């Protein structure tokens, strides 16, 4: 643990810090993915200036959040990357392919570093590698040289070269101080002996070089390790992270609800005091004889009335917020549940990333110029399918590079662009995933191929003449056929088209091929999506079949109709008739009830419940379907499934059943919390586009007794401000849609919010920012990284000044 961690533990408890970092990691992934995408599209699909601006914005946001969660190395790396981009934006360095490639590699490296952060042994060399990648670009605009950058001189020297008018980040004194702190921790990776770092890199532990098998920047989805995918499911770290973050959100929800409950307790106490004051004065009324005494009592009564009014308002606000938060928790629980069923599913994104790497490597080896265009990143399919389809797809890409795409000179002669294009598109069609791999290369000359089949003795002349073009093309999938003779390093060995077809067929899919000579070849893979299957207990109530997730069903039993607990006697779980929980009118129930009824015993959160049913059908594998917007609000149902005969069967939510059966228990467990905060501070609105910062601010403010709402940008903030009065608004400056200054401008224009205290939290604090903040009568300006201390100094200047 670094010294930075110790400081942060003052601001957050360890659990919270871990979660914030988890959130940050997700954010960093998104941000870096955006950087990669923009770097690749700059100058092609997108104007360079736009791409660079967007990359800078994203990088900048990343820097701000990284500082807040104490990842100083990321702050430093992001800062350097931002600097390199700034040099392009200001025109000091032209946008070039080399630079674009470097940015992609830097983003890859940073992603790997962010993933490895918890493991210093892995992280340090990764950070060192990124520093090295950044060195030539962050140091100088002259031609890239492999000399390492001077440790901390780069930002200063760069800012000297910058024209004064350019809106690039300025180092706030505060920021500078933190920078120095981060530089100290940067020494960690630097402390690794350079020779060792070089060894690590040449072993392929760090670098994303030559081919996919040596690529370790995304180590977990390395395609070529030889273990059997049938016995092991490789789960993308991202997927686990999603689950972690869903679980983390629940923890945040729980914390918020607990704080709310604490506030309610404080309010109850204050109401009690007000009532006592009221009672005292009521007694006084009778004793009051003079006009002055009566007036004094009246005054006091007014005061108490005012207090009660204020308390009532707070109570209503708190309750409303509590409802919102319970709702959020319910949503997040649903999210977690969906996430769990989706663990088996993955999007094409990871697959595409892997293909991009493989293609880059293949193109480098073959000396070809090829560009990959992908579409359908969000297409989901079963992980087992995705994993087994990776090798065939890489094979198709290599084939395209070696056999399909012509050398640049030849392409130009044919009137094509010198750079070849391979398109990989994924989409879902019913319960099939369709993946198309299309190149714009030379295509397959069917006539020649026909000749070759005859010459090689594979086909008789008659067969060759009878075969349709389609037959000829598909004969390429037969074992031992190659359209070019030499077995080259890239595609001649390993699996050929025959194995592609075989692998796809084993997955229950098929592969088709079309080709136009001179225009290119397209392979179309059709694969089953596969389905999210889970285990459930099925039973019948009132003529319909329902399901409960097997994980919560501990037993089935036969229960006496008169029994109230099962097993009978003390310690037994309560018995309820499921039709009662389902509110099926008893008039429609079969009469008389049999003496003994079958029951399903479910356990949820240490509470057991025995539900009697009409008939237990038994455990089944079911495919979980979403309920959709009309049915999902109904509390008792978690989803639905379709029976073998096509009927909809509802899946009951064990948590809701337990809640319905024990209404008082659910509330009681929520109140067992820490002592309540001393007082309510008011209602605050936090506006920031970074989820991590929002959570951090919420945590800090809630600890001071604030009721906190959050908004991700100015537009959303204004919508909230319209609905509720806020006593404090804390906002970021740079946000999508509506930034902080515009938000404050709008707030100041409204009479209702003209004087609402506003605090700015920004990573870009310049003299100009300070001036504008003063003009807008902003209460305080906090430079990111955000700390609890900085926040308190701004919020309570007198109190903190005293200590």
């Amino acid at each position, binding site marked *: 643990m670094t010294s930075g961690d110790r400081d942060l533990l003052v601001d957050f408890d360890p659990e919270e810090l871990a979660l914030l970092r988890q959130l940050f990691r997700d954010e960093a992934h998104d941000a870096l993915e955006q950087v990669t995408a923009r770097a690749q599209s700059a100058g092609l699909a997108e104007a360079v200036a736009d791409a660079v601006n967007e990359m800078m914005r994203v990088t900048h946001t990343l820097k701000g959040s990284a500082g807040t969660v104490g990842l100083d190395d990321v702050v430093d790396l992001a800062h350097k990357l931002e600097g390199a981009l700034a040099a392009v934006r200001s025109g000091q360095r032209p946008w070039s392919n080399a630079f674009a490639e470097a940015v992609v590699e830097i983003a890859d490296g940073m992603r790997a570093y962010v993933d490895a952060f918890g493991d210093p042994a892995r992280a340090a060399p990764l950070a060192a590698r990124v520093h090295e990648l950044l060195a030539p670009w962050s140091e100088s605009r002259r031609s890239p040289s492999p000399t390492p950058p001077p440790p901390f001189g780069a930002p200063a020297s760069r800012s000297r070269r910058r024209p004064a008018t350019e809106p690039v980040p300025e180092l706030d004194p505060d920021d500078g101080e933190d920078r120095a702190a981060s530089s100290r921790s940067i020494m960690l990776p630097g402390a690794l002996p350079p020779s060792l770092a070089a060894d690590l890199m040449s072993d392929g532990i760090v670098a994303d070089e030559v081919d996919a098998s040596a690529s370790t920047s995304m180590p977990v989805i390395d395609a070529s390790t030889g273990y059997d995918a049938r016995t092991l499911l490789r789960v993308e770290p991202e997927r686990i992270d999603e689950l972690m973050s869903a679980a983390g959100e629940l923890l945040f929800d729980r914390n918020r609800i607990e704080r709310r409950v604490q506030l309610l307790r404080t309010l109850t106490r*204050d109401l009690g005091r007000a009532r006592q004051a009221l009672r005292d004065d009521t007694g006084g009324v009778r004793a009051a004889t003079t006009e002055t005494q009566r007036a004094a009592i009246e005054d006091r009564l*007014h*005061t108490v*009335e*005012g*207090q009660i*009014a*204020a*308390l*009532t*308002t*707070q*109570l*209503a606000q708190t*309750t*409303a917020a*509590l*409802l919102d938060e*319970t*709702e959020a928790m319910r949503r997040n629980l649903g999210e977690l549940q969906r996430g769990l069923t989706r663990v088996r599913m993955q999007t094409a994104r990871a697959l595409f990333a892997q293909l991009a790497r493989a293609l880059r490597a293949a193109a480098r080896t073959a000396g070809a110029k090829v560009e990959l265009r992908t579409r359908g990143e969000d297409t989901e399919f079963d992980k087992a399918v995705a994993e087994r389809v990776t090798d065939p797809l890489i094979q198709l890409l290599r084939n395209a590079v070696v056999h399909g795409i012509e050398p640049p000179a030849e392409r130009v002669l044919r009137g094509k662009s010198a750079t070849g294009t391979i398109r990989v598109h994924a989409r879902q069609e019913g*319960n099939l995933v369709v993946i198309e791999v299309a190149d714009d290369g030379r295509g397959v000359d069917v006539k020649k191929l026909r000749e070759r089949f005859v010459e090689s003795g594979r086909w008789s002349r008659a067969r060759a003449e009878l075969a349709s073009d389609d037959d000829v093309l598909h004969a390429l999938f037969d074992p031992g056929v190659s359209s070019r003779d030499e077995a080259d390093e890239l595609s001649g060995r390993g699996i050929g088209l025959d194995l592609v077809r075989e692998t796809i067929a084993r997955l229950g899919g098929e592969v088709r091929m079309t080709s136009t000579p001179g225009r290119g070849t397209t392979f179309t893979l059709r694969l089953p999506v596969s389905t999210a299957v889970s285990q459930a207990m099925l039973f019948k109530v009132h003529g*319909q079949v329902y399901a409960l997730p097997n994980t919560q069903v501990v037993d089935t039993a036969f229960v006496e109709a008169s029994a109230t607990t099962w097993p009978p006697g003390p310690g037994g779980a309560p018995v309820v008739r499921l039709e009662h929980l*389902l*509110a*099926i009118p008893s008039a429609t129930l079969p009469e008389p009830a049999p003496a003994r009824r079958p029951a399903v015993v479910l356990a949820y959160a240490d509470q057991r419940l025995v539900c009697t049913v009409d008939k237990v059908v038994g455990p089944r594998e079911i495919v979980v*379907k*979403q*309920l*959709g*917007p*009309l*049915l999902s*609000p*109904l*509390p*008792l*149902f978690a989803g*639905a499934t*379709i029976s073998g*005969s*096509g*009927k*909809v069967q*509802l899946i009951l939510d064990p948590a809701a059943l337990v809640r319905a059966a024990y209404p008082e228990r659910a509330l009681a467990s929520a109140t067992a919390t820490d002592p309540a905060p*001393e*007082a*309510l*501070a*008011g209602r605050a609105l936090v506006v920031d586009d970074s989820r991590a910062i929002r959570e951090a601010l919420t945590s800090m403010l809630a600890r001071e*007794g*604030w009721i906190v709402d959050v908004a991700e940008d100015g537009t959303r903030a204004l919508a909230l401000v319209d609905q509720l009065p806020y*006593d*404090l608004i804390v906002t970021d400056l740079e946000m999508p849609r509506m930034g902080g200054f515009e938000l404050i401008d709008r707030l100041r224009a409204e009479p209702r919010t003209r004087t*609402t*205290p506003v605090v700015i939290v920004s990573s870009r604090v310049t003299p100009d920012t300070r001036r504008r903040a003063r003009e807008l009568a902003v*209460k305080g300006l906090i430079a990111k990284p955000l700390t609890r201390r900085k926040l308190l100094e701004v*919020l*309570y200047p*007198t*109190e903190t000044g005293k200590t």
Partner: protein
Amino acid sequence: MGVDLKNVIVFALGGARHAAELRWVREVVTLGFVTEIPTAPPGLTGAFNLRGNLVPVLDTGVLVGGRPGPSPRQGDGALLIELDGVMAALRVDKVDEVATLQQTPDGTGVIDSRGRVVPLVDPSTLVRRAVADSLAVRGDADGELALDLTADSMRPTRDPTTGAKTPPGFDGDTTLG
């Protein structure tokens, strides 16, 4: 204003004919087995499986006559409505025709090929109401705590000079009196 033409689907329900604008109707389907949904609000009469997806069935009777219609059964015809991503089926007795018909001057109906006025109904209101009703079921289940508080307490305080709420926490005053 000139003649207003509408693309409509004309259907029969409860012995009367009605028309709905075609833009609300995604397709005409035959209901599969309709599963009842306990705890659902009255207008939500069940759900069925349409090509592997769950589709709720709404009571169309409320839309055309204000009275609940018959329970939907397997084999009944229904209009599949999609509104803002909400999919729902509206049971009908029979689908008459899909036609471009002239709207009545008051806009409440269309005139069919034989010159009869067919009242125009808006299925989207039914879907919106069903969503609101469904959300209300959840609200009731969770909201007991809120119900008795919100009614009175949200009123503004009568006398702002006593106990007026200053933004707490900014004048060193962080307590509530």
